[in-house]
């Protein structure tokens, strides 16, 4: 049981990273469907840099930088040129999938020494909880800190208030002097950096190697996760670990001695996502109440005059 929960956290961590980035982005009113593409680019760049320099820390930073760079393509098209957010996001995913496979083609199958677990002294000695929470690698701890920091920033600070104002009503925010586009740029870029680190987690920790399309739809699941968490940062953490649990269900079931085809069990996270979408969508009123009001709608300051 302890082992399962430990694995659920490990599997949920990339989802947590990318969903944290996306929730901030969506809170500013921008729906970026390019998560999968940014994540794949993060994964391949993180791996390539770590492989060639031998420095995995540098790999993670490069992956985040790559994520930001990818998100900037999206930001320019959506925020400046006023392109359709859905189509641009899809383009970003298709582009990222292709580009990552293109630049990673020569490195498929190479293996590197990824991040090693670091047990936190004292805390990791707590029975059960110590093993589940405090004997992971450093990126998992970073995701813990990130979640706590974001809960604080979104709910308790002026930055969080500005972000929400832009997402709820950009016209009102603009009227009181908030630079709407600047806030949205920053939110999209933050989303990119989180997608990058999420990809790096996949290629440096989860399976320390590069495989084409290795994120296997996690970028899309993260988008569902944000809706599942009704745009609340704290619930994203819970949701990510639940999805992590669903992804390793085959291990659990095998543990009970059930033999089901691994290919059928591989569907579980996707089926779970569909079920979640149905449950949330059914409560139409609640979804409308909780989603940022201007989500997906363009804002053009030129039209204000």
């Amino acid at each position, binding site marked *: 049981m302890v082992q399962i929960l430990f694995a659920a956290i490990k599997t949920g961590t990339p989802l947590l990273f990318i969903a944290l980035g996306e929730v901030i982005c969506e809170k500013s009113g921008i729906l970026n469907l390019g998560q999968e593409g940014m994540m794949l680019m993060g994964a391949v760049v993180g791996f390539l840099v770590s492989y060639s320099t031998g420095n995995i820390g540098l790999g993670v930073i490069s992956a985040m930088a790559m994520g930001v760079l990818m998100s900037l393509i999206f930001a320019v098209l959506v925020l400046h040129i006023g392109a359709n957010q859905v189509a641009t996001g*899809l383009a970003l995913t298709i582009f990222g999938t*292709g580009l990552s496979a*293109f630049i990673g083609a020569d490195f498929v199958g190479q293996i590197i020494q990824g991040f090693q677990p670091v047990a936190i002294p004292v805390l990791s000695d707590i029975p059960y909880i110590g093993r589940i929470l405090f004997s992971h690698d450093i990126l998992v701890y970073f995701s813990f800190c990130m979640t706590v920091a974001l809960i604080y920033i979104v709910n308790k600070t002026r930055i969080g208030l500005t972000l929400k104002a832009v997402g709820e009503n950009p016209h009102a925010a603009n009227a009181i002097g908030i630079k709407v586009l600047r806030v949205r740029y920053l939110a999209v870029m933050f989303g990119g950096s989180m997608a990058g680190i999420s990809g790096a987690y996949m290629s440096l920790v989860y399976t320390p190697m590069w495989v084409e399309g290795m994120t296997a739809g996690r970028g899309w699941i993260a988008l*569902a996760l944000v809706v599942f968490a009704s745009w609340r940062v704290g619930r994203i953490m819970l949701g990510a670990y639940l999805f992590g649990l669903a992804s390793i269900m085959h291990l659990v079931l095998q543990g009970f001695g059930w033999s089901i*085809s691994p290919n059928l069990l591989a*569907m579980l996270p996707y089926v779970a*996502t569909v079920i979640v979408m149905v449950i949330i969508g059914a409560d139409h009123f609640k*979804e409308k109440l909780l989603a940022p009001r201007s989500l997906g709608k363009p804002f053009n300051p030129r039209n204000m005059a």
Partner: protein
Amino acid sequence: MIRIQARTEPSTLMKVASPLLAIVLTLIFGSILFTAIGKDPYQALHVLLIAPLADSYNIGEMFVKMGPLLLCAVGLSLCYRANMWNIGAEGQLLAGALGGSAMALYFIDSESVFALPLTLIAGILSGMLWAALPTFLKLRYNSNLILTTIMFNYIALYLLIWAVHGPLRDPDGYGFPESAIFSDATLLPTIFESSRIHLGVLFAVLSGVVGWFILSKTHLGFQIRVFGADEPAARYAGFSGKKLSWFVMLFAGALAGLAGVSETTGPIGQLVPNVSPGYGYSAIIVAYLGRLHPIGAILAAVFMAVLYMGGDLAQIEMGIPVAVVSMFQGVLLFFLLACDFFINNRLISTNQATN
């Protein structure tokens, strides 16, 4: 100085010119990229775009690739016109391949004339089913169509992989994850002697014409166009959004299913795990490049098929990873979206504007 001014009316010229401009910009981007990785850009572009059309064999292969792209893109064009964000053509294609193959394997020892039609119908119905599930979930439970259709893509993929490892695996296939090779009675006949162009390619071109007819000549098509342009107006006119949603989704599912079953009963001849090199996703770009117009989709599908074919040749002849194709597709869509800006806006010099 130059500045941007909103047009009073959308430019019809730019609507047509924008995809062409985007293609040119993508080629320029490609030349720079090939130069950067130390390949001769002229040779690379030649292999990617001209070589696929150089001889009759290559042209035939290009049409074989055009078939599934076009079938999926025609369906998606109608969906997007009606504001149904169906990203599930890939899953619907795989479902069609799976359902059709199950039927084809049922007829494995048969010579019946009904074998091929029933196989095709099974594929079409499977594609429709795969489109119906997310449509039902959207209309009944208001779930997000983009995400559910993508999830159904993954579910279809694993279902197919499961099937070729399990129930549909060839018992005499030495354990390879492949079905038995279909009997001749369930294979799509080829149209020309010397090439692999099969009946499915003809279906694809027909689907473009049918799609155009529905969209331009029928009341249903009129409703779809009004719905896409101005949803409140369509509702005010009393058009049923549900009925239209069902129609476009089932139409798209049927075409994608047909694409899938045509692949397995056409060029492949059996069910294999990698039926589609992402045709369903590329079809999204084909639909956009064709301006969400079924006839435009035919032209766009030819271009995309050339690119697919060129990608294969570039890998063989120049050692360029085949992933270059999907990267180009993404870049192409970026440029297209950027160029579309000028449908509703134009650049003017500020001197002129003050007049």
